[in-house]
């Protein structure tokens, strides 16, 4: 030990160790592993409560001073030092590594890679963690209820069992019990022993003598060392104590089970020994006449802990084991039959996905319908399904085409024909969702035709649907949705514009007011307020270019990279996920406009709340609705307040939906200066008006245009003869329907000016 040469790095480290406030003494370093590793024994002071000082140790056996061995590997500081405890240190503590180093227990100091801690906080960080670990070990607070119950470490076991943890946890009730599940397994033979990789399915078969030949079996596979088989998984859980309280196992014990007898002791500890015995007895009877085997039986004891198990939102810890069974005695060596603890691997389950995405495993999957399984829709569906919230219905009329491979979330299969890839998008997407354990119904149809038939509507969404998400970027679909009264829920629309420079999300308000049509009109009005954005969306180059596909077929789509589309899809799916968790907006609708940053790397989203629109019906001719948006309403009210003793007015701007017979009045232009106001009449002037209207419409690519006029009445009177005459005059000169809106002290009146006929007379 004398005269060893230590590197400067190690000398510096040792100086730091001796400077640590919790360190009492640093021993003489020595070299091990052929000189590669420097080992030093360091005495830590452990501050026990005063009342334990006489005993000199804590009830858990931690002494007032603990000698800890710190081994600096030759790779230090790239590799972290290993900290180990005296050989007789109490191993029945949580946060203990499953292995020994030179017979010495190794504490689990840090929830992560120790080398990362070393680089983050330096050696002081590791020393601090050691001091804290010793202190908690002494106080019995290594398990921190805030962090959760530390499950027994099982990751180093050779056998592993895949199971849907949340599914099994849901079995646990106050009565206690057991259940058999089908088990599929691979048995790997190596060095005379076998290792099981099993999958406990969600199927619980009826177990009796007749069923046994069907439930058990094992066959060789092409690989010599591998056999494939089926058997059973037995899940056992505890009920309540005689006192009526739930059986809770609050003592931490490391995994030490090696025989059936010890497995039964473990079950006793967890309060489910009776349940285990009953199940094994029944299994023994069922198997008694069957000659095959041995088969691996997977046993999962569910232990109820005092607080939630770390990494889950349940206090139920899964403790899986594997033991071979065969008739007639079930266990060939009786109670001494070898039993191996197994590692638990999560099955892909909806709950696991929800948890990994920061949601509650216990939350319900919200039912929703996706319309449009194209590149944007498929990404939204998969992002949300990966958070456990995939759609229940996918509607898309089209089939996959080669150009979809550029951006669609699904990936083409290999092979010459790629014929399968050409299936309906909705079906292919639903297949992918199935792999994420989320069943979805595919509807290969046009939304407009679905909405025309009550029969078809039933397939498109359920009554308790959370929302219908329209990712089609189709004007027809939007119009069809806006005009339909067959939707049980609100519509959220996601769309991209200007080659992926702008993305828009709209979410309808309560009672579908404002609706998806109102909101897109509102989006245009918002873009009008931001002319740079409007230029990008409505400029000459912005129109979706027509991609040439195979001869004779085509599709409107924009050229942009998958990455750019994914930027938007990611943000949009985060919006949907948040709204699924927190609910849709309560005080109206929402328009979110996202813009790509100048460097093309990020997005900035702006949220605009849109209050419900005021609805007015026309009183002549065909029934049309006028939706007066808050912006227009405010301007009208302001203008009438300015002219309390005269009639006044202006020009309406917005959009018309012929499908839903709706005027969306999003904005109002002031009356020209040559207008004339008097108590009985308002005459709209002309000076500069046409140019003003043209420039307004051109700024937004004619997505917003003149809808007609509005004027005020000083009394609560409806359209006058003059008004009707004007309506007629307006209608003659226009190809699109127009409206005359009249503001009175008690509300609006509306008069249709339709070029198809005349402003029809009558009341």
């Amino acid at each position, binding site marked *: 030990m004398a005269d060893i040469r230590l590197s400067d790095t190690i000398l510096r480290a040792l100086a*730091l160790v001796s400077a640590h*406030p919790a360190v009492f003494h640093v021993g003489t370093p020595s070299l091990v592993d052929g000189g590669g590793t420097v080992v030093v024994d360091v005495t830590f002071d452990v501050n026990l409560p005063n*009342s334990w000082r006489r005993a000199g140790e804590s009830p858990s056996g931690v002494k007032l001073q603990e000698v800890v061995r710190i081994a600096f590997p030759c790779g230090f500081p790239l590799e972290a030092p290993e900290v180990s405890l005296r050989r007789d240190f109490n191993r029945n503590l949580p946060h203990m590594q499953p292995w020994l180093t030179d017979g010495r227990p190794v504490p689990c100091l840090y929830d992560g890679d120790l080398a990362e801690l070393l680089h983050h906080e330096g050696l002081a960080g590791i020393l601090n963690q050691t001091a804290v670990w010793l202190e908690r070990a002494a106080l019995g607070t290594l398990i921190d209820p805030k962090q959760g119950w530390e499950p027994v470490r099982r990751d180093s076991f050779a056998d592993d069992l895949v199971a849907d943890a949340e599914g099994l946890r849901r079995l646990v009730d106050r009565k206690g019990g057991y259940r058999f599940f089908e088990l599929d397994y691979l048995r790997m033979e190596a060095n005379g022993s076998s290792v099981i990789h099993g999958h406990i399915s969600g199927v619980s078969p009826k177990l009796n003598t007749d069923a046994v030949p069907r439930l058990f079996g094992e066959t060789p596979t092409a690989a010599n060392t591998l056999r494939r088989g089926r058997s059973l998984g037995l899940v056992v859980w505890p009920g309540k104590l005689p006192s009526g309280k739930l059986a809770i196992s609050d003592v931490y014990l490391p995994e030490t089970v090696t025989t059936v007898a010890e497995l039964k002791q473990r079950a006793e500890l967890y309060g489910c020994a009776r349940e285990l015995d009953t199940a094994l007895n029944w299994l023994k009877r069922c198997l008694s006449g069957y000659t095959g085997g041995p088969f691996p039986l997977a046993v999962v004891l569910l232990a109820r802990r005092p607080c939630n198990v770390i990494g889950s939102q349940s206090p139920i810890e899964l403790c899986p084991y594997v033991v071979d069974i065969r008739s007639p005695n079930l266990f060939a060596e009786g109670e001494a039959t070898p039993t191996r603890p197994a590692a638990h691997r999560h099955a892909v389950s909806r709950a696991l996905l929800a948890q990994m995405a920061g949601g509650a495993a216990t939350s319900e999957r919200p039912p929703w319908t996706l319309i449009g399984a194209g590149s944007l829709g498929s990404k939204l569906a998969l992002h949300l399904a990966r958070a456990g919230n995939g759609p229940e219905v996918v509607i898309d009329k089209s089939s996959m085409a080669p150009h979809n491979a550029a951006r669609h979330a699904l990936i083409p299969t290999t092979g010459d024909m790629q014929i399968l890839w050409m299936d309906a998008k909705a079906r292919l997407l639903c297949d992918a969702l199935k792999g994420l354990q989320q069943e979805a119904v595919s509807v290969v149809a046009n939304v407009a035709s679905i909405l025309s038939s009550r029969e078809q509507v039933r397939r498109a969404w359920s009554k308790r649907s959370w929302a219908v998400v329209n990712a089609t970027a189709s004007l027809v679909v939007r119009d069809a949705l806006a005009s339909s009264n067959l939707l049980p829920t609100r519509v959220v629309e996601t769309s991209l514009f200007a080659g992926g420079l702008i993305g828009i999300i709209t979410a309808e308000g309560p009672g579908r007011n404002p609706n998806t049509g109102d909101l897109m009109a509102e989006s245009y009005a918002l873009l009008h307020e931001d002319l740079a954005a409007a230029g990008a969306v409505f400029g000459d180059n912005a129109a979706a270019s027509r991609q040439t596909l195979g001869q004779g077929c085509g599709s409107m789509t924009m050229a942009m990279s998958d990455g750019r589309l994914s930027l938007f899809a990611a943000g949009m799916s985060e919006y949907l996920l948040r709204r699924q968790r927190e609910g849709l907006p309560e005080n109206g609708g929402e328009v979110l406009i996202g813009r790509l940053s100048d460097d093309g790397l990020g997005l900035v989203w702006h949220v605009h709340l849109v209050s419900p629109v005021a609805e007015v019906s026309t009183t002549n001719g065909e029934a049309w609705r006028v939706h007066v948006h808050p912006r227009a309403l405010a301007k009208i009210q302001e203008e009438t307040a300015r002219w309390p003793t005269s009639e006044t007015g202006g020009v309406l701007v917005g959009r018309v939906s012929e499908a839903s017979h709706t005027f969306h009045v999003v904005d109002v232009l002031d009356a020209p200066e040559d207008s004339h106001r008097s108590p009985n009449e308002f005459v709209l002037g002309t000076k500069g008006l046409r140019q003003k209207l043209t420039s307004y419409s051109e700024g937004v690519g004619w997505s917003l245009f003149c809808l007609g006029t509005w004027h005020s009445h000083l009394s609560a009177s409806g359209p006058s003869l003059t008004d009707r005459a004007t309506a007629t005059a307006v209608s003659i000169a226009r190809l699109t329907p127009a409206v005359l809106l009249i503001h009175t002290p008690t509300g609006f009146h509306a008069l249709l000016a339709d070029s198809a006929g005349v402003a029809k007379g009558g009341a």
Partner: protein
Amino acid sequence: MASKITLFPVGNGDMTLIETDSGRKILIDLNIRAAADDSDDDTPDVASMLRERLERDADGRLYLDALLLSHPDKDHCTGLRKHFHLGPPDEWSKKDDKIFIREMWSSPMVFRRASRNNVLCDDAKAFNTEARRRVQKFRDVGGIVGDGDRILILGEDENGKTDDLTAILVRGDETFSRINGQYDWSMTARLLAPLPKTDDDEEEEALSKNQSSTILQFSLAGDQVGDRCRFLTGGDAEVAIWERLWQRHSWRSDWLSYDILQTPHHCSWHSLSHDSWSEMGEDAEVCEDARNALSQARDGATIVASSKPIKDDDSDPPCIRAKREYVAIADGVNGTFKCVGEHPSEKSPDVMEFEIGKDGPRLKTKLMKAATVLSSGVIGGQPLAHG
């Protein structure tokens, strides 16, 4: 929630924060020296250490539920005016952001005029002025006062000056569980001194020379279990006081028992002996009664000297001979002796914190701070010549 006792490194002086299990905070004495407020000086910045342990109220004021001055000596009240709001609550200023004192705990000495034996420093005078303001407020409104106007008088004054203050008075030997006007289930304190007045002038003269500090025995709950820690603290009380406390309470010595003792007068020999250490050295004799009063340690007790590092020399306080006595007392119960000025090291003393859980008090483990590892060393600490 665990309660806590925190002793701040203030050299020879006291500054102790008690956080009760219910979350209330009581500061006993303060000694925030100018050097501690100077960022270029190595003296621990105890004002910041205190502030980071306090919370702000709805008005954004950092506050203490109670502030006790054990006695008005400089090393127990320095920094009061600079760091604490004094005066009516509505004069608290956001800009100054001083600590707001919801309730003062004062000895009745504030009613006495300064005398030749009683020369007060400016901070002590300010404390007295504030205490008198609060008593006046109590008298003016006839009882009910709010945060920042409350005061509790610990001990009766001579000549009946406190007779009309029953509602805000704790008499000697009594216990109380009231903090800031409210009952606190997690704390009970017994007022052991000042001692009740006697008619014996000689006796009174002897006591007045012996630093008539407030002496309290706190009983604190930990993790919602009552009486998990007894904390005995007695300012600068000297030998005659402890002698008399033993004479009065030896038959109920539980009143003097402790899990943590803050040694009186910064580990001074004068609390244990009538003899002078510097003059008589090892010939100085321990006063048995005083030692008994300070020996009622419970199993595993910690005795803490709130002082500078203790050297083996003739200085006093802190006195090495006193330390030896306290170490012996601690050893007798498997306890420990600690010095705040040496914790965790003489070179860089830091707060000494005790956490009180269901198993009683425990010294909190010191971890290594990044600043310790990454400190600039002498750079910036002293002039460095470069040739």
